[in-house]
């Protein structure tokens, strides 16, 4: 446990946030010999408590937020847009960040994602290309220990294989494969940030089946791995040290200090030569907005007025039902087959779709046992009746950047430190609704071919977010239309770097964290070049 929460006397780099973005940057820079301090708002969780967290996640009575202790005044927020946004289901605060809870699917964006405006007129182009990121993607896969295969005909070009072999397909995948083939849909493996073989001192996946929200074995990657490695390499990590604001010099050109609070109620200033903002796609813009000053009356690094704007997530679309044969679900908590056939867009009529074939469709017997109003033989009959034949196809759907979707400061509500809480203003536009409908059509076609009795569909009205916070400090070459440049450095302040999905100018429909890791590795290089 960290007892000394005083600032370091001399630091080359101060990193705000100990999720994968902050953890990877800290680890890289510490390995190169720089003095790194990481300030993390949440606690350091004890690894030995993971099984108890798993129990809390399975047993009814413990709300989903209790597993990683989210909620309360610290995490207060508002959601005032068309759509409610359940922010505290969508993140974790603590060493490891939201990867403690995440699912761990990790795929590269497609080449087209970087040039969407040029190709379809939607959104905007990235200031970097797939080729620019390609070596960082390969390194990121190495860092996260990705299990994957090169069998995906839709994936962008790659030179090396994934570091670990892919998890083989599930039994239900084989049922889907046949149906998909019949309707002309090509399926392939899923790259997973979980170990298919043991690696270093970490165990391979042992099949607890509770990956989301907690993997007791540690086979699922989470950012504690990088944070701990960074510490072994000399970095200092201060937990329960939420940064309240960033301060800058008189010229307004450099950040001089991160002001953070500690549990005893005192405030400290951590000075450093370079600052890395890695607090996630909601807290990044919030902290910049909270750091307003005379020079930056609308928020730090916000000359463009775009800090907090263009908030995006991926939307869930799905359908499922039952077959009249066993489907063997809920043995593991991750997926092994997807289809990226409907990813690239021909024009502006729809966004990207990523199809997922679930290995955990329908209820698990354990959950059914705990939540019924019967017991003994009646309960067993109910479980046998309800478990065993479910199937489901999910999808992630792209949402184009819209200026009106944003993270802003709430005018009245404040958190435990008296700071305005984030207000998530979120809506779903017509193109996204069309894309969700298209995903549903494909899902129904596959399920019908499979002979499923379709019992539920999540369409444009019932859809919800996938918990990928993007767009709120967008990257671009033009300081008037973006917040950071292609080196992930803010246009306004020369020593402030943001390696995060908050810099994504468009979001595609791939889970974002492999791209975050690639950007973190790139950002670490740029920071090292400067100091």
């Amino acid at each position, binding site marked *: 446990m960290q007892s000394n929460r005083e600032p370091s006397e001399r630091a080359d780099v101060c990193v705000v946030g100990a999720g994968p973005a902050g953890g990877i940057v800290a680890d890289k820079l510490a390995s190169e010999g720089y003095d790194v301090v990481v300030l993390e708002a949440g606690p350091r969780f004890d690894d030995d408590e993971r*099984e108890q967290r798993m*129990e809390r996640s399975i047993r009814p009575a413990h709300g989903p937020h209790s597993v990683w202790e989210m909620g309360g005044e610290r995490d207060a927020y508002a959601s005032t847009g068309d759509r409610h946004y359940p922010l505290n289901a969508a993140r974790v605060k603590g060493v490891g960040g939201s990867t403690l809870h995440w699912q761990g699917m990790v795929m590269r964006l497609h080449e087209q994602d970087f040039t969407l405006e040029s190709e379809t007129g939607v959104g905007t182009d990235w200031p970097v290309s797939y080729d620019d990121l390609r070596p960082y993607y390969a390194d990121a896969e190495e860092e996260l220990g990705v299990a994957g295969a090169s069998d995906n005909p839709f994936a962008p070009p790659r030179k090396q294989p994934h570091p670990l072999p892919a998890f083989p397909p599930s039994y239900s995948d084989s049922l889907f494969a046949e149906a998909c083939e019949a309707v002309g849909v090509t399926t392939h493996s899923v790259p997973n940030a979980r170990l298919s073989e043991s690696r270093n001192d970490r165990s391979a996946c042992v099949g607890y089946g509770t990956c989301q929200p907690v993997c007791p074995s540690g086979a699922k990657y989470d950012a504690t791995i990088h944070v701990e490695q960074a510490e072994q390499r000399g970095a200092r990590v201060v937990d329960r040290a939420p940064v309240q604001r960033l301060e800058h010099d008189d010229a307004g050109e450099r950040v001089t200090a991160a002001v953070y609070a500690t549990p005893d109620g005192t405030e400290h200033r951590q000075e450093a030569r370079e600052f890395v903002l890695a607090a996630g796609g909601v807290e990044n813009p919030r902290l910049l907005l909270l750091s307003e000053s005379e020079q930056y009356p609308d928020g730090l690094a916000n000359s463009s007025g775009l800090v907090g704007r263009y908030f995006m997530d991926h939307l869930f679309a799905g359908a499922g039902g039952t077959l009249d044969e066993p489907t063997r679900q809920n*043995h593991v908590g991750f997926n092994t087959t997807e289809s990226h056939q409907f990813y690239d867009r021909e024009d502006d009529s729809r966004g990207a779709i990523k199809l997922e074939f679930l290995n955990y469709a329908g209820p698990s017997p354990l959950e059914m046992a705990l939540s019924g109003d019967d017991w003994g033989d009646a309960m067993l009959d109910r479980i*046998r009746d309800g478990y065993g034949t479910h199937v489901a196809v999910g999808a992630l759907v792209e949402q184009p950047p819209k200026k009106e979707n944003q993270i802003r400061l709430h005018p009245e509500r404040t958190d435990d430190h008296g700071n305005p809480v984030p207000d998530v203003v979120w809506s779903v536009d017509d193109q996204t609704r069309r894309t969700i409908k298209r995903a549903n059509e494909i899902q129904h076609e596959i399920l019908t071919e499979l002979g499923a009795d379709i019992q539920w569909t999540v369409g444009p009205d019932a859809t919800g977010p996938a918990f990928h916070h993007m767009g709120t400090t967008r990257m671009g070459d033009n300081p008037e239309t973006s917040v950071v440049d292609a080196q992930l450095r803010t246009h306004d302040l020369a020593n402030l770097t943001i390696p995060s999905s908050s810099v994504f100018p468009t979001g595609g429909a791939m889970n974002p964290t492999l791209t975050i890791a690639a950007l973190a590795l790139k950002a670490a290089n740029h920071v090292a070049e400067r100091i």
Partner: protein
Amino acid sequence: MELTRRDVLAALGAAGAAGAVGAGALTLSQRDNTGNPVGDHEVATLVAVAGVVYPSEVEGVETFVREYSVARFADRPEYAAGVADAVAALDEYTRTWHDAAFVGLDANAREETLSGMEVDIADPVPEGDHRERVRYYLVNELLYALFSTPTGGELAGIENPQGHPGGTTSYQRGPQ
């Protein structure tokens, strides 16, 4: 289906008490001396409740519950206190209708008592009223233990249930 020592270990793994498995060598009375609120009477009550809530196909219930209980509550004094309180609440309710504690009833009366207390329709709430705590600390405790074991899972058609580290081959296998 017979619950075995392997199931005890599996249930303890799911309950985060795998490290306490060595304690299986300790007898319950030794545990009592260390001040564990879950003593002989509490374990006997858990066995009696399991007789009601476990499906009749399950065999070896008493040994399973006894061995599991020894290690399960050893390192969790607060949780153990919750179990002991729930047993006391169940006994109190039982005594309003019978001249005995819950363990003193026959099988039918046990079932009637739990139903009469409306534990079946109660939400499991650790800080709740009596029936909610009986549901959480006794009924759901026992069901969690059973259905996170391979034997419990197999009753329902899943040999690697949630909460059990049963490896990564079963998900690939078709129905046998």
